[in-house]
């Protein structure tokens, strides 16, 4: 279920990117796309009934399986990269606002 939700969110982010003409909305859409992507990545490593990939004192006794730790590690990287691009996008948005006085792309006129 969560995997389908992740794909649906990816698609919603894409839909936002296609339809929105407001700079802040575009960055919001990109964030939604990234959250969906991150959820999808983690879902790829999920094992039904698995436990979080951290060794604890009773690991060897109960025979449970770990979920795949590699997607989690990749998502950590992806989240931080996402913050970097979002911060940059917002800084650019601020610059654009200073230049044109609006966030709406259609109101900015010819570049």
């Amino acid at each position: 279920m969560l995997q389908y939700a992740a794909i649906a969110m990816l698609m919603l982010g894409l839909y936002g990117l296609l339809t929105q003409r407001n700079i802040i909305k575009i960055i919001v859409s990109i964030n939604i796309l990234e959250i969906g992507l991150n959820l999808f990545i983690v879902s790829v490593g999920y094992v039904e009934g698995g436990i979080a990939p951290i060794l604890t004192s009773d690991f060897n006794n109960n025979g449970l399986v770990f979920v795949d730790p590699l997607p989690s590690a990749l998502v950590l990287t992806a989240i931080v990269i996402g913050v970097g691009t979002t911060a940059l996008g917002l800084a650019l948005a601020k610059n654009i606002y200073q230049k044109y006085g609006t966030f709406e792309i259609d109101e900015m006129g010819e570049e």
Partner: protein
Amino acid sequence: MDLINIVEIIVSVLMLILAFLAINSKSLVKSVMFLSALSMLAVVGFVLMKAPDVAVTEAVIGSGLVTSLFIFTLLSARKVGNK
């Protein structure tokens, strides 16, 4: 169908609704708030999928800092607009 599955379904549906609202809401501040809430629900999703590291990171960075950056941008824009 046990409890976990039900929680999963609720979280998924709520996330989709929030994502749709975040994209389609008229007010920018509301849109950002929906994004923040969505991010918080994604944290639940990460916990359900047994990725606590990602959950902690997403909670602090995704729904905390990114939201504040959005709000600061909107704040400064309003300031310039009022002048």
